[in-house]
């Protein structure tokens, strides 16, 4: 069976199963939810459930539950291999960032033809928010009143990125971010990562500056916010091999020369990955930085407790946040957020980082001076 492959989206699965069994399947759905939680996968499985030849018998013979695909019949395998003639998958063409009007016009032409093998045609628009203005307007009329037996599935990360005219014609199905344990299970194959013995051998002050395997795993899971795609990205070799040094820099931010930090970071994100790859790696580092200061903010405001990204480092936060007021921390976070924004607006990366780290260093110094001044 195949809805089983869709993990932790019980709401969506049971919704569609209920709708199909009651014969109330609409003609247009928006599947929205965070990146990498299985929206596209779900669209495929739903198509299979609709096209599957055996679903009727299966439900009576006590096999797989009603309204699910068998995964073995002809249509199911055709969908799986992407060869089914009645499933149309629309995504940005290679080398393009958006779904153009030509693609939608082609889709419309096909929608008005009778299905070839199944009893309906399914159109999946992956990342529907990538439709150009022309494309989404072009879709409106067909989306509202398609020929009988047409099903549109639009996937997107947020309903806010779609036009209201599109949304108004669709029913919305929300996808949730995956629970941390599920992501962990998917990455590690369920293998638990206890703290290694080598870690506990270190004295506390060293341990607080090092990422143990378990800490790192936790951090990447927390930062992924329930998106499998992000979790894997954080576990790349290029990130994990530098994480200890990164933490060290965080500790010595005030004393280390800001320009050398930039240099070091840039070395971690080598030219060979291309500009896009470089940006994406830098984004990861800035995210780690943002998470760190966010933790300090939370610590300052409400003390330790669950929900911190760097849970293992709480003992060090007391001294680290002593010099920083909530306002300063907010300002720092804002600076990091702005720098992250700069990555996307084509800023010079070196200058961007220089600026950021100079600012960060100055906050530490300023508060230090102020303290001396008053005491």
């Amino acid at each position, binding site marked *: 069976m195949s809805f089983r492959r869709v993990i932790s989206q019980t709401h969506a699965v049971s919704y569609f199963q209920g709708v199909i069994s009651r014969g109330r399947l609409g003609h247009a759905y928006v599947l929205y939810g965070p990146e990498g939680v299985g929206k596209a996968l779900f669209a495929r499985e739903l198509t299979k459930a609709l096209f599957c030849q055996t679903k009727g018998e299966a439900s009576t013979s006590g096999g797989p539950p009603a309204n699910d695909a068998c995964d073995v019949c002809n249509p199911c395998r055709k969908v799986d291999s992407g060869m089914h003639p009645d499933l149309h998958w629309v995504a940005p063409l290679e080398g393009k960032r958006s779904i153009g009007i030509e693609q939608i016009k082609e889709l419309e032409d096909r929608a008005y033809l009778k299905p070839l093998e199944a009893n309906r045609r399914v159109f999946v628009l992956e990342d529907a928010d990538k439709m150009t203005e022309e494309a989404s307007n*072009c879709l409106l*009329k067909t989306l509202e009143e398609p020929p009988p037996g047409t099903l549109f599935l639009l996937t997107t990360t947020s309903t806010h990125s779609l036009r209201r005219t599109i949304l108004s014609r669709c029913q919305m199905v929300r996808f949730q971010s995956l629970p941390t344990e599920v992501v962990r299970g998917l990455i590690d194959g369920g293998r638990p990562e206890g703290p290694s013995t080598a870690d506990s051998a270190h004295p506390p002050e060293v341990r607080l500056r090092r990422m143990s395997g378990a800490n790192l795993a936790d951090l990447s899971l927390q930062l992924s916010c329930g998106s499998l795609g992000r979790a894997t990205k954080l576990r790349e070799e290029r990130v994990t091999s530098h994480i200890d040094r990164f933490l060290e820099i965080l500790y010595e931010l005030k004393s280390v020369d800001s320009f050398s930090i930039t240099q070091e970071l840039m070395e971690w994100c080598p030219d060979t990955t291309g500009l896009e790859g470089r940006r994406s790696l830098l984004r990861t580092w800035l995210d780690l930085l*943002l998470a760190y200061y*966010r933790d300090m903010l939370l610590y300052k405001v409400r003390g330790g407790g669950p929900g911190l990204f760097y849970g293992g480092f709480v003992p060090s936060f007391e001294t680290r946040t002593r010099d920083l007021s909530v306002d300063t921390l907010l300002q720092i976070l804002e600076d990091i957020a702005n720098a992250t924004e700069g990555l996307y607006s084509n800023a010079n990366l070196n200058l961007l980082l220089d600026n950021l780290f100079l600012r960060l260093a100055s906050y530490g110094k300023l508060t230090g001076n102020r303290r001396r001044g008053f005491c």
Partner: protein
Amino acid sequence: MTYTVFARKYRPQTFEEVVGQEATVTTLRNAIAQGRVAHAYLFAGPRGVGKTSIARILAKCLNCQQGTTDSPCDKCDSCRCISEGRDLDVIEIDGASNRGIDEVRTLRENIKYLPSRSRHKVYIIDEAHMLTKEAFNALLKTLEEPPPHVKFFFATTAPNKLPETILSRCQRFDFKNISLEDIVNRLQQITKKEGIKADEEALRAIARYARGGLRDSQSLLDQLWAFSEGTVTVADVQGLLGAVPEEGVSALVERFIQKDAPGALKIVNETLKEGKDWATFIDQTLWYLRDLLVVSTCGYDQGLLENPWREAQLLKTQSQALSQETLMAMIQTLTEVKRKARDDFQQKVFLEMAVVKLAMMDFRPLSEVLSRLEELEKRASAIGYLQSAAGNQETKGGNPKAIRMATEVTNSPSAGETPAREKIQYSLPKDIGGVWTQVLERLHREKPSTWSYLKEGRLRQDGEQELVLEFPNDKPFRKKYLETNDQERAVVEECLAGVLGWRPRLKFALYERAAPGEATPKDALVEKKVVGATPDKGLAEKAVDLFNGQIQK
């Protein structure tokens, strides 16, 4: 096999069924009744309010086989074909898909042929805003003077994208968003027909999330009904949208009011953990803050609120707890989060940052800030006066306490002759020198012998209720005289009490004179004023004489 969604199933087929567009409907019906149907109409307005539906109804009115009427039969072949969008003479064009000049050229070629069976050939051009500039221009001549059998109906959500030349050739109808009540009523009709059980509160919630689009509300209802087992409840609606119960939002705002950042963070984290939709959550909070702003600006008026069913009392108290400036800053901060966040991680962190900020936010109204600023200005000038007038010697060593005292003193009303006794018991007027001058004047009149002892003295403030009477250090016997002589002392205190309105405790001290025998500037000032009392009077009398007038009080 196929199931028709509510939005299509309940598309209005006659003018009677159209909801919330009374003005447009009345105008069009009158036009039909009087036989004045124009050849080009433009229907503009937001999504899901009935533009395309009205265009189709109008087409039916014109082409119904029962004759032109404002209530088409909806049974004849023409009517049914139009409803299904397959009539030969009512050509519905998707303006967004057929937007080029070539399509318009084809249209112009076909336009001259008479309708195949009906009286009119109707072109409904939907999504007209997507036609290209060339296409619009190619249409202009035809649109202005089409053959008598042709009608054009444009429908668009963005009339601002249509060129003026097109707009001026059409009769334009602007469609309104549909009111909450109208949506709820329509939903109730549908639930009755379909036999759906739904709480009224749930329908209200649906209507609110639809934001004025009837189709949005129908889609939502459809979806809820398709899934629900028994009754449709508010919880179902919120579950479907990932929305937080209204209590959750007001609780969060209450945390902001209490300046309880940890509590606010807790609410946000619990919300996100439950898998609620963060964007919806921010929207809900924004709408709530907006309602508070409305209440604090216009008072409580149900008609203006986004959610008229909120608890009135809570809204009123909360709107009083936050200044309008704070509310606006809060709305701005939250909006920025929505705009800036790129993915879930940023959403989470930015939202937390915003929550901490909001919980610390307390902006005073601008008028209040201004008045405080003015107050400060007054105090600053008072200090300046004290420093220059009260003598440089006294504060030369830097006596911050005296300055601080002086600033506090300014809280009292100006140095009037009779300060309000009940209100301010122990406050000194800022102008101590002035007080002393008055005292001396009084003594001069009442007991000149005491005055002569005091005329070179000066008054200084020490503590809240104590005044220090200082004498030149070269005349220590004067100090001694007053210290020992209780009677004289009582006279002075009486005099002071008369001027100040309360009886201060008096202490005595000496001050150093710059050069013995030579009056300090301050002494000179006092001397001059006191002595000047008489010459001044003389001056007035002289003036009276000179002008041959009289003094009027």
